[in-house]
């Protein structure tokens, strides 16, 4: 697979992998953008092109690690992007899957209690995902932005580095994907009859989408955000000595 650069034609990249449409949507780029390169659309939409290229490539290639590009963009825009993906999960993707599961349960007469159990499991999963996202929004992201601020304006920050470090985040980084994987397994292997097969198909497909997207989200956090924050933490500590 070819790596995307600012010279790459955006439509060509998307024709090769249509999943990128969801990614550019988080930069407020929608279909109908015309025959433009990645660099041109970034200029037009006032998006940092280095950051855009890192996000697109990281989505396409799991092993992509932009070591040399890490310094080229701000954590502020990375956090903004991650917040947009959070918004997408909580306000679009999860409610949509919930609606499908509700229909699956209510459409069965007489009632199939096994489906109700799956619904409860999904509800528990959603609560966990929500908690995880809220912790990132309330603790991790403010910390990340604070570190960047100290890094850029060391003269303004009188106090030392807070006790929380990105190391904490790494250890508490819940594996919400595990539960999702269990849900897929249960749907595929252990779902009790009778049920609406078409709905089960659609739910499973949506769970796969969500899983791929969450994995991608974690990868950006683990491979881009954390290394960049750690680099800043190290430099701040060195300067303090």
């Amino acid at each position, binding site marked *: 697979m070819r790596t995307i650069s600012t010279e790459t034609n955006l439509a060509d990249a998307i024709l090769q992998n249509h999943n990128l449409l969801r990614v550019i949507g988080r930069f407020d780029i929608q279909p109908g953008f015309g025959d433009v390169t990645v660099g041109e659309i970034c200029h037009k939409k006032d998006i940092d092109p280095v950051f855009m290229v890192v996000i697109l490539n990281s989505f396409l290639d799991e092993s992509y690690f932009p070591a040399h590009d890490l310094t080229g963009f701000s954590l502020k825009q990375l956090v903004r992007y991650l917040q947009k993906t959070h918004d997408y999960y909580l306000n679009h993707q999860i409610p949509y899957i919930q609606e499908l599961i509700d229909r699956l349960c209510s459409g069965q007469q007489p009632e199939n209690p*096994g489906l*109700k159990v799956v619904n*409860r499991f999904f509800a528990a999963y959603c609560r966990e995902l929500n908690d995880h996202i809220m912790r990132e929004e309330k603790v991790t992201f403010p910390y990340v932005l604070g570190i960047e601020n100290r890094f850029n304006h060391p003269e303004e920050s009188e106090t030392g580095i807070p006790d929380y470090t990105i190391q904490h985040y790494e250890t508490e980084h819940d594996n919400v994907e595990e539960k999702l994987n269990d849900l897929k397994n249960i749907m595929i292997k*252990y779902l009790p009859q009778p049920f609406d097969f078409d709905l089960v198909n659609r739910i499973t497909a949506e769970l796969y989408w969500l899983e791929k997207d969450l994995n991608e989200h974690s990868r950006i956090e683990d491979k881009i955000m954390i290394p960049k924050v750690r680099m800043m933490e190290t430099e701040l500590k060195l300067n303090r000595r």
Partner: protein
Amino acid sequence: MILPQSHIIRLGLRQCLADLNLPVKIFLAADLTTATDLSENNDIQLIIAGEEFSDDAGFHQLVTSGKPEGIFLFSENHLPGNEQNLSLFMTPVELAAKIKMMLQTGKENENMPTPEKELSKREKEVVRLLALGASNKDIAEKLNLSLHTALTHRKNIIRKLGIKTAAGLTVFAILNGMITLEEANL
């Protein structure tokens, strides 16, 4: 591994097995602690245990956690025609046939394309307890297992079912009638 309490029977069995010229290493254990140690550090294919161990919880643990391919119970008396039994009065030919057949079955199982998927009775108990909210430590205590064995059961359950989280196992347990929805903490 040869595990009767009697020293004479152990050595006798070792000699009989040595006479068969099998390409296997023979371990001797007089008690379950030694047997468990040996089982944890070696790939034990076959256990020949004295019948005195048959009702022992520690023995049950040994054979479920170590996963030998075959188990024989050795009796000083003639036991009714069970393939899983060896007795003091067997002829060398009978012994050779049984041992070779068991080792061969083990090999065939190894070559089976699909891994074993059915949960053992003990694994079902572990699933049930996990679904009711028990920790690994609680399970070890309730089932009288070492923590290591409880963890091994859990690993095997994950491998067999493809379900990793306690919540996922709870759903599995409800769907399979191991616990009720009311009992579950979901």
